[in-house]
């Protein structure tokens, strides 16, 4: 059963007194206890689209619109969204320590979150269970310390505990491991897998690191300049990527044995003046003139494998 589905998501940002479109016609969905990877270069609209799901963009200078938005198959009323935050959708961010309030102890912030999640009084038993679920053993030290006293890894585990505390159904993990040391990364990824299995959580895993995405995600969306160019099962994307941009991305991953890394020439387009045709056209090695004139639609070339490109076979 789909825990979240959004169709035709558009996001525009105000620059001086005109609006520029950052995300155009995005369709996104996720099943219960599924991990969906969202990969792409930074600035391709990954973070912005997920923040839009919970209306977390600054109201003053942003505009969000969509054809349909369903959570647990019932339509979402925009005024209800603030109520969803934490209870249905929750977030963890790239820099764990600055995402915690420096002025309050972890115990205070944890209690506050638990109140958001459930009506009844918060007791120590619930706190202990939560900390164990996220693999934090030294209970007393963590609870009594301030954010700046925690290590990056511990802080991220606390952030995850917060998400579980408000027993949300969908977790958006925005580059959760990027700021952490190598040996801590794997721990966090395994933790995400564990809570997905135990609690049937749907997790959006946003990252620019494809290797980590393939390791954790069931399905992967490839983002480019504000729209999806390809999405399919992660194994399919890993072995048989169809879109030129996805293949170029894969070539950038350093593999043992291959010593020379390829680079994608040019840079992603400026949101101010997006080209008419396919957005990847200027950097695409298989570019045809049709790519320049029309923008390719997203079509299901194989079962469960969607592609936005005019080339039949690659």
């Amino acid at each position, binding site marked *: 059963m789909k825990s979240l589905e959004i169709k035709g998501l558009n996001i525009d940002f105000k620059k001086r007194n005109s609006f520029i479109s950052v995300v155009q016609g995005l369709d996104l969905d996720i099943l219960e206890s599924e991990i969906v990877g969202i990969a792409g270069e930074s600035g391709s609209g990954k973070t912005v689209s997920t*923040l839009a799901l*919970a209306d*977390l963009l600054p109201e*003053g200078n942003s505009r969000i619109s969509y054809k349909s938005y369903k959570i647990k198959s019932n339509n979402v009323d925009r005024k209800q969204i*603030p109520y*969803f*935050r*934490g*209870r249905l959708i*929750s*977030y963890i*961010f790239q*820099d764990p320590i*600055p*995402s*915690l*309030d*420096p*002025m*309050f102890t972890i115990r205070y912030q944890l209690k*506050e*979150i638990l109140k*958001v999640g459930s009506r009844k009084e918060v007791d120590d038993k619930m706190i202990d269970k939560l900390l164990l679920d996220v693999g934090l053993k030294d209970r007393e030290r963590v609870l009594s310390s*301030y954010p*700046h*006293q925690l290590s990056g890894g511990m802080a991220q585990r606390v*952030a995850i505990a*917060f*998400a579980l505390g*408000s027993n*949300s159904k969908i977790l958006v993990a925005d580059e959760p491991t990027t700021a952490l040391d190598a040996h801590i990364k794997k721990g966090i990824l395994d933790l995400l897998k564990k809570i997905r299995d135990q609690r049937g959580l749907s997790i959006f895993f946003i990252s620019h690191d494809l290797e980590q995405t393939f390791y954790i995600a069931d399905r992967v969306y490839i983002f480019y300049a504000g729209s999806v160019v390809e999405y399919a099962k992660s194994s399919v994307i890993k072995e048989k990527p169809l879109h030129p941009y996805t293949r170029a991305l894969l070539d950038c991953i350093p593999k043992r044995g291959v010593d020379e890394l390829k680079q994608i020439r040019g840079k992603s387009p400026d949101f101010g003046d997006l080209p008419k045709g396919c957005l990847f056209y200027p950097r695409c090695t298989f570019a045809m003139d049709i790519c320049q004139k029309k923008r390719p639609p997203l079509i299901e070339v194989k079962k469960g494998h969607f592609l936005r490109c005019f080339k039949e076979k690659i």
Partner: protein
Amino acid sequence: MLIYILKRFLIALPLILVISLVAFLFINLTPGNFFNQMRLNPQISEETIEKYIELYQLDKPVLMQYFAWLKRIIHLDFGYSFAYNIPVAKVLGTRVLNTLLLTLSSLFFTWLVALPLGIVAAVKVDRAWDRLISFLSYVLLSIPTFFMAFLLLYFAYLAGILPLGGMVSANFTELSLFFKILDLFKHLIIPTLVISLGAIASLVRIMRGNLLEVLRSNYILALRARGISEKRVTYVHALRSAINPLITIFGYQISGLLSGAALTEIICNWPGLGSLMLSAVRSQDIYLVMGSMLVSSVMLIGGNLIADILLGFADPRIRVK
């Protein structure tokens, strides 16, 4: 914590001594002494003035006078005021209380008004309230305080309801306690307004700036994303961080309590330390000036100490290493 405070006061002692010496020299730098005023009165002869000078040992070299004064200070004898020829402590006594009363009331009024206004301006940023508040703060910051005092007094006269300066009305002693407080309160209104309006304007701007900066930080977005209500995010979390720099400013304001506003006190005819000091300094009533200088130095060092302690206490990042 106690040793920290003791250490600070131990360091402060030599500091105050050095400053008192510097001040003593400055006062004596300007030529002449207190008794010059009498030299122009035709009926006062030279010998009489000389007698006064011997009486207060003004003829001795400056350093000798300073150490004599210092010796007396050690056993808390602040010396005599030439003008009032009673102990300096007595002259200062009531004046210090009056100035403290005025500055504390304006401090209270300033914070009572400035904090909410600053918060409203930040929360409703760039909307009607914010624009009105920042326009008002521009206006209040730009009027010289002594001119504001003057205008308020003039309006009080036109309105006829508020007393025109002074601290108590003539029949004060006959009033019952309640009416005494009411009378004192009515007299307090104008001088407090004068001192506070300027302070409110700058405090509102700082509060607004701090709160805006904190509202833009990462953890505010994270808190909202975790489902904390907008009210709690703003008034508990954001405000808690935004208050920190203000606490230090509050500490420093304590040290300024005694400097008060001499000009406001003169125009509003408030019998405080400011107006007394202005005439004492110009007439070189040395021991009176030194007495008040000592008191305000202690207040200043105390204020700074409180500010540092408050800062440490307020911000866990500094307190807990």
